């Protein structure tokens, strides 16, 4: 092997990435070649020098804090899951309990849920080929929603007697219906957040945008609402989206949401916003939102105060 070939292998030798035979070739060559031996030492010194970066070792206290926070999150998510999804009962009973237990505003969403489960349930019995009887089915939990960007596939894991997985493209009606159900009705905010994250990639479709709007206006979790808002950003000039943004600006209890809403609303200098902005400028507790509204009013040559 030539010196050039040996030199090109020196780094991989030092990184222990050569097989046994290649290693022996490099070692034998370096023993008899002063130039390559010197190159080997230079490379060794260089790699050792890079190792002078100080490695950060997490303190035991930091590890304990992280572990504590993690386990608390897990127990909280499991409690929510148990509360939101009855187990060990028939599908009909489960849905009846869900229906009776939810507020009026959630009932349209529950209708969607029925539709989704009916659609999906049928597909799963057909595709699975098992001797399942839909009448005996039990919906226990949606345990995960993930997107594989490499394959462009959505994966939803849920419990029905045992954990099931549904894979398909976002355009697949079964996937879409399950996602819409999860985004609108499912109790676990982590699942809703993951679902919205996936749905927002398809926000050019009206049905998906409606789901994002629904989450933005109704979801009890600020993280989920924020994700929905992110998905609607590029549609901030649409009337329905602007109405929802105004609702967020004037009624959302999370200042981060109000900040996002005011920034999006301000992208278009809309005179019809003057009254809303004046109201917010007077009552808003968050400095940024208040100042942003005041600045927008000045830019629109409107009074900061309402009379």
């Amino acid at each position, binding site marked *: 092997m030539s010196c050039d070939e040996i030199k090109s292998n020196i*780094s*991989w030798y030092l*990184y*222990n*990435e050569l097989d046994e035979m290649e290693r022996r070739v490099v070692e034998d060559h370096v023993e008899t070649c002063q130039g390559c031996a010197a190159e080997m030492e230079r490379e060794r010194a*260089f*790699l050792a*020098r*890079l*190792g*002078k*970066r*100080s*490695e*950060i*070792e*997490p303190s035991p206290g*930091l*590890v304990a*804090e*992280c*572990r504590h*926070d*993690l*386990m608390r*999150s*897990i*127990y909280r*998510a*499991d409690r929510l899951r148990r509360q939101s999804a009855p187990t060990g009962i028939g599908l009909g009973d489960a849905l009846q309990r869900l229906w009776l237990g939810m507020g009026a505003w959630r009932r349209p969403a529950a209708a969607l849920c029925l539709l989704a489960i009916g659609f999906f349930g049928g597909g799963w019995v057909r595709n699975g080929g098992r001797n399942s009887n839909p009448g005996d089915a039990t919906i226990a939990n949606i*345990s*995960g929603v*993930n997107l594989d960007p*490499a394959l462009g596939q959505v*994966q939803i*894991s849920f419990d029905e007697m045992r*954990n099931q*997985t549904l894979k398909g493209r976002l355009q697949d009606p079964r996937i879409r219906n399950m996602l819409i159900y999860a985004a609108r009705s499912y109790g676990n905010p*982590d699942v809703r957040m993951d679902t919205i994250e996936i749905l927002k990639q398809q926000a050019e479709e009206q049905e998906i945008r409606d789901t994002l709007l629904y989450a933005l206006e109704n979801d009890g979790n600020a993280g989920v609402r924020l994700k929905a808002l992110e998905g609607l950003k590029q549609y901030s000039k649409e009337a329905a989206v602007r109405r929802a943004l105004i609702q967020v600006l004037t009624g959302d209890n999370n200042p981060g949401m109000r900040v996002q809403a005011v920034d999006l609303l301000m992208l278009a200098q809309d005179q019809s916003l003057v009254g809303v902005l004046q109201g917010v400028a007077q009552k808003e507790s968050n400095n940024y939102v208040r100042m942003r509204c005041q600045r927008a009013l000045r830019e629109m040559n409107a009074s900061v105060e309402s009379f």
Partner: protein
Amino acid sequence: MNSRPAPALGQDVALIQAAQQGDHDAFEELVRIYDQSVLRLALNLLRSEQDARDAYQEAFLKAYRNLAAFRFECSFHTWLYRIVTNICLDHLRRRSVRKEDSAVMETADGPRDLFDVVQDTRTEADPERDLLRRELGRRIEDALARLGPRERVVFELKHFQGLRLRVIGEMLSTSEETAKNCLYRATQKLRAALA
């Protein structure tokens, strides 16, 4: 370069199977086995305590939610490292878009450069030598920060974590050859920056 061997596989298998059946204690035990190395990797890759905390939480929550899908096709260590590595990669990509310098750590005395905090924990007899070492460390940090996110991750996993390029390729859903090219580019850039 320091390689940290994964705990015994047999112990993992029993714990993973129990955790897959919903045993919280088994999952917590898995967390105890792996969380220090996960946090160390996140801290050293992200150089920000808050980002590392976030990556830790996100990685283990993702592992918990997807544990049922783990089929023992690779070691649990590789599977978990794949999750945390990709989360860190996303952080680095977002940071490279924001161009933020996040090597800051909250301390009792207020925010301080993470590098200085780490250095304080060491005792050095020779202040001049200490200064030179700090200077070199800082130059290396600067050079590492200028690498692309993927180059940064591959370099960290190879040079500091001692993983094989084949494993790194698996973690990043790419080939060994691509990981090798990435490492080559990273070392060339570092060589130029530290010349």
